[in-house]
């Protein structure tokens, strides 16, 4: 069987065996539930509840404010305790709605009831997705309803279900594909009904044979659906690399997949779409992995959004003594966090805890660049990190932009491979916003 991939990439230690066989167990939150108003790319949502209001599970508590924004729903029933500023996981204050959880999880009327959706028009489906507040659950948090409205829906040829899950350690998508295969497949079918000429491709890395088998069985007999095995390589799940692996086409700098007739959705997003359309259920729960050598009992959980990270840590058996670093997400891209009182938001999918800090160790070993070019060889976008880093250090934004530095997805591949342990990714992270504003300025100048 052919195994598809892209050029470049690295092979970090998978560490998936820690949690791959741990089934998704439901975590019942005990404490207060916190809902930041900005859980997505775009404008923060506007609250529609007031302090001391009673809310039910699945009730809308904040409404999308503008085109690129998303609804937020409560995942528990209880009283609105406060609407104020709280620290997120990184320690940045942000506006939040706090709900005192009554422990009942009484659903709002209509939520969770099966709906016959066979006669739904594409507009109705998109409206359902919008109402349910679904955003890209792979990590980016881009409102899904916006993604479902390209200029020419007839020109969309592929809907890719992203089941690559290339970040080391994370297995919640793997578990979702195995345990709730039908959710993902039905979700994909719902999306396909919006686009008449599209084929559905479920792309999974070959380190998840269980998921591949389950999916292959589920799509058997359906001509529009297929399962594609990808090579296990980081960052296989990156949108550009996935599009190339599946279609053989390259996305141009700054282009969106829709320009090539492709729409990429995470498998968790598709499952959420299914729940929203078929059960009238807004996004309230999601799969979540707690992994790493510092957890006593790593595992996979179905968590309700708004649950504090502390409760996940407890559910994973607590942290071992001497745990040094906690990362929200996977070790390659996730940020180190300082605040475990923060809630889980839509785009979160894992908590990784380590006894050792790799970055600290790398910093001690840091050396001058030896121009070996390994970063260039592994960059999944074909950029030249070594040259880009030099431009960053000089503060030469023009050169950085010329080297397509603004296309960098900050996947961390270059920092991972660098034998001199240069902090390349952090340099790009620091320079990219400046480069983006530089590009906007140049574009404005051109117009004027």
């Amino acid at each position, binding site marked *: 069987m052919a195994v598809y991939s892209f050029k470049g990439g690295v092979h970090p230690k998978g560490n998936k065996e820690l949690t791959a066989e741990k089934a998704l167990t439901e975590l019942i939150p005990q404490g207060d539930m916190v809902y930041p108003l900005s859980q997505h790319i775009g404008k923060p949502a506007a609250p529609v509840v007031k302090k001391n209001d009673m809310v039910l599970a699945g009730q809308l508590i904040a409404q999308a404010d503008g085109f690129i924004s998303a609804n937020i729903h409560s995942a528990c029933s209880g009283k609105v305790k406060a609407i104020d*500023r709280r*620290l*997120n996981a*990184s*320690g*940045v*204050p942000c506006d939040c709605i706090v709900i005192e959880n009554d422990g009942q999880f009484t659903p709002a009327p209509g939520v969770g009831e099966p709906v016959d959706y066979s006669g739904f028009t594409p507009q109705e489906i998109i409206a359902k997705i919008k109402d349910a507040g679904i955003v890209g659950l792979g990590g980016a948090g881009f409102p899904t309803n916006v993604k479902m409205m390209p200029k020419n829906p007839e020109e969309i040829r592929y809907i890719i279900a992203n089941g690559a899950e290339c970040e080391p350690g994370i297995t919640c998508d793997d578990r979702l594909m195995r345990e709730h295969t039908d959710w993902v497949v039905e979700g994909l079918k719902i999306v396909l009904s919006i686009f008449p000429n599209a084929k559905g491709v479920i792309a999974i890395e070959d380190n998840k044979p269980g998921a591949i088998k389950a999916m292959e069985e589920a799509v058997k007999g359906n001509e529009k659906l297929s399962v594609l095995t990808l090579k296990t390589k980081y960052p296989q799940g990156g949108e550009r690399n996935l599009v190339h692996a599946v279609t053989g086409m390259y996305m141009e700098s700054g282009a969106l997949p829709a320009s090539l007739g492709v729409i990429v959705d995470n498998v968790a997003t598709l499952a959420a779409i299914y729940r929203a359309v078929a059960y009238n259920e807004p996004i309230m729960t999601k799969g979540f992995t707690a992994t790493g050598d510092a957890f006593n009992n790593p595992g996979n959980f179905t968590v309700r959004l708004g649950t504090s990270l502390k409760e996940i840590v407890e559910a994973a058996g607590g942290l071992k003594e001497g745990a040094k670093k906690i990362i929200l997400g996977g070790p390659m891209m996730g*940020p*180190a*966090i*300082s*605040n475990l009182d923060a809630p889980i938001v839509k785009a979160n999918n894992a908590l990784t805890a380590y006894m050792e*800090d790799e*970055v*600290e160790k790398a*910093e001690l070993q840091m050396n001058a660049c030896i121009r070996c070019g390994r970063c260039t060889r592994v960059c999944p976008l074909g950029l030249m990190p070594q040259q880009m880093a030099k431009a960053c250090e000089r503060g030469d934004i023009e050169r950085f932009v010329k080297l397509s530095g603004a296309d960098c997805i900050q996947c961390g591949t270059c920092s991972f491979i660098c034998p001199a342990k240069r*902090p390349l990714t*952090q*340099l790009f*992270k*620091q320079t990219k*916003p400046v480069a983006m504003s530089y590009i906007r300025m140049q574009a404005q100048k051109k117009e004027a």
Partner: protein
Amino acid sequence: MNAITLVIITVILLAVIGLLIGVLLVFAGHKFHVEVDEREAAVREVLPGNNCGACGYPGCDGCAAAIVKGEAAVNACPVGGAPVAEKIGNIMGVAAEAAEKKVAFVKCAGDCTKAHTKGAYVGIKTCTAAAALPGKGDKVCQQGCLGLGECVSVCEFDAIHIVNGIAKVDRNKCVACGRCAKICPQHLIEIIPDKAEYAVECANTEKGKLVKEQCDTGCIGCGICAKMCKSDAVHVENNVAHIDYEKCIGCGACAAKCPSKVITLREQ
């Protein structure tokens, strides 16, 4: 031909070429002579020569040219201050107005003992790099001095140092060139008049409760200072106090009543 003849021919040839080129250069020098304003050289001579760019022109040469052209005032150089302005005034034949001495001031007092920390920052040791990450440096406060000293690295006058985890300006050495203010990713450094007696040592715009959780000496925006001020110089904008130095008379009423001690008498 023997060696001696060879040497003599070479010497004569070179001498002739040299002479020809010399004549050509003298001719060119007269033909393409550019009128240079003598004052520009004189002004350049008087300027300090740090090329710090504080005047807003590209180095001291640029500043001198601008002064002579009349684009810049004779006291355009903040580094030189009054003595240099007077000398330039003499050259230009203009009476120099005394420029007010200004200094940089770091609006953060959250040093190691006062600011609460949330963990260790591991990564590139520059403020810009730390500020680009979510959660910024090791302090809970997201708007305070990160203490990694990028301002120190750009100061040409050895006037700013990291003391106890935050940047502190040496008033005597600072010439208010503004380089530190420009590089600070937290926008914490303000150029204030040197004669200012009191200053607000905080720039946190969060509400009082959050500030209290972040730092022992943060401005909670209570507004007592604004109430105490008799000359309408102190105002609370965006949850943080700010002093208008044009109005401030230095009475110290605001500092006396400040509950979190962020308005302080400046160190001499």
